[in-house]
């Protein structure tokens, strides 16, 4: 299948392991990701709270680029934040928001002028679950992850809020209170998914800079709950949670102790590992939280 690919800013920076492992996994399973090379920032939370019109124009330009260049009606992103921004804009356009006319004339001025709403916005986790699925992963496993205990963490914007994700209304969307798509995919690799109550809790990443001690407290709660549940590592589908839980982990440990020390990886890295890709190409040495140590100890890397 062919689909527009919007990596977002984080995947071109600190979360490049997520970008590269996503591409590897997609290629292996026959998903043709057509990268929107001249993409701009989705605007994230910051623009949304400052200027409503701009908060639609930025994501609209991304979708317009996908449509104009590749003539696709679907766009996929691996980032929870970008997913939220694109869906929110698409929803506003489809509901004839007061800014719609301005957004369209903006795109005619500076873009292809092809996008007016009605884009199928997908999250890479949801897309991978629905189009490929656990069965196909299971039959492609070359190196089982048996013996590895993982906590499957989703973050916030992947399944919430239902007003824009349409969880519970639209088929193909994950369960919004108890998401399970990632759990099922991880089980298919042979890994054991531990019961973990914070799987859809907030990591506090939105305030990682503005209110560091609160963000660290929320992150510590997620990490320690995964560790208490017996997990060897935390697996996630969001580069913003990745920044909060992995890159900030040394600071979190300083404030909250060793109970918050836990390797963090992206789900695409583990799926890649199970189908025989090397830790090097999957960039498993990238995380600050050092997943290689436990992978080596278990004979998986």
């Amino acid at each position, binding site marked *: 299948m062919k689909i527009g690919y919007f990596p977002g800013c*984080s995947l071109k920076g600190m979360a490049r392991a997520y970008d590269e492992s996503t591409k590897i996994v997609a290629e292996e399973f026959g998903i043709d990701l057509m990268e929107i090379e001249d993409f701009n920032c989705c605007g994230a939370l910051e*623009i949304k709270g*400052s200027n409503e019109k701009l908060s639609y124009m930025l994501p609209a330009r991304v979708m317009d680029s996908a449509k104009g260049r590749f003539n696709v009606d679907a766009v996929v992103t691996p980032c929870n934040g970008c997913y939220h921004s694109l869906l929110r804009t698409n929803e506003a356009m489809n509901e004839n928001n007061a800014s719609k006319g301005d957004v369209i004339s903006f795109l005619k001025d500076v*873009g292809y002028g092809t996008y007016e709403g009605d884009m199928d916005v997908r999250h890479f986790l949801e897309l991978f679950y629905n189009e490929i699925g656990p069965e196909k992963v299971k039959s492609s496993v070359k190196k089982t992850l048996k013996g590895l205990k993982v906590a499957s963490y989703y973050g916030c*914007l992947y399944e919430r809020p239902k007003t824009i994700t349409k969880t519970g209304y639209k088929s193909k969307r994950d369960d919004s209170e108890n998401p399970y798509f990632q759990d099922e995919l991880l089980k298919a690799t042979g890994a054991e998914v531990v019961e973990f109550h914070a799987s859809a809790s907030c990591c506090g990443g*939105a305030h990682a*800079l503005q209110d560091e001690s*609160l963000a660290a407290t929320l992150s510590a709660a997620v990490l320690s709950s995964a560790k208490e549940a017996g997990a060897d590592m935390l697996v996630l589908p969001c580069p913003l949670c990745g920044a909060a839980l992995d890159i900030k982990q040394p*600071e979190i440990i300083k404030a909250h102790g060793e109970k918050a020390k836990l390797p963090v990886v992206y789900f695409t890295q583990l799926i890649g590992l199970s189908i025989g890709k090397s830790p090097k190409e999957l960039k498993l040495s990238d995380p600050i939280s050092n997943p290689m140590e436990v992978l080596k100890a278990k004979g998986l890397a």
Partner: protein
Amino acid sequence: MAENTDKMVIDGVELTGIWKEFLPSRILYEDVTTEFLDEVKKLPGGSTIVRCYQCGTCSGGCTLPDFVDKFNPRRFIDLVRRGHYDILVNENKDLVWKCVSCQRCTHRCPRGVNTQEVVRAIAKFLEDRKVFGKLTNDEAFDEIFMEEVIEDGRIDEVKIVKDFYSKTGRLKEMMSSDQIALGFKMLTSGRIKLFGGKIKDWKKVSQRLKEELQ
């Protein structure tokens, strides 16, 4: 319901199901000023505040009360709608902006209130009225973010962290040994690029976005 039901009171709360005693009445026959409500309604994301019927689902599921004492979205909305500006400023101004945007409130709201965006609008309302007496971290970050998106089209993680610390007068913290070690690892592994990728023809888009802001 019968008038003379025996009462059961626990911790001062009547629990026999006589609702007017169980929950204080939310329909208040008092003179309310809608001045503040009108202002919040007009801010980005604020319009759905009028839909709230004060059920409390937002506060019940909220991430923050476990970590931030007295954080209560239902109350923020109530205070704005009833025009209780003094209580909002004196007791809640340091709480409102702490929302981490987890979206549980918006997700579960049975009335379609975009609660997260409404809470952000209330924080912005307070910022606009200068009740904090200084530039808040949130304002500082939003301003830098807006500038950098418009100028470059993308966010460079290192640049934005540096500019944020600089704007809030904490540049020294960035020079701690931990931060330098982290920066070194990022740089040597190629995750920090000193010359970020440029977007083709962004100048034109940037110009157009600037016009939009005027």
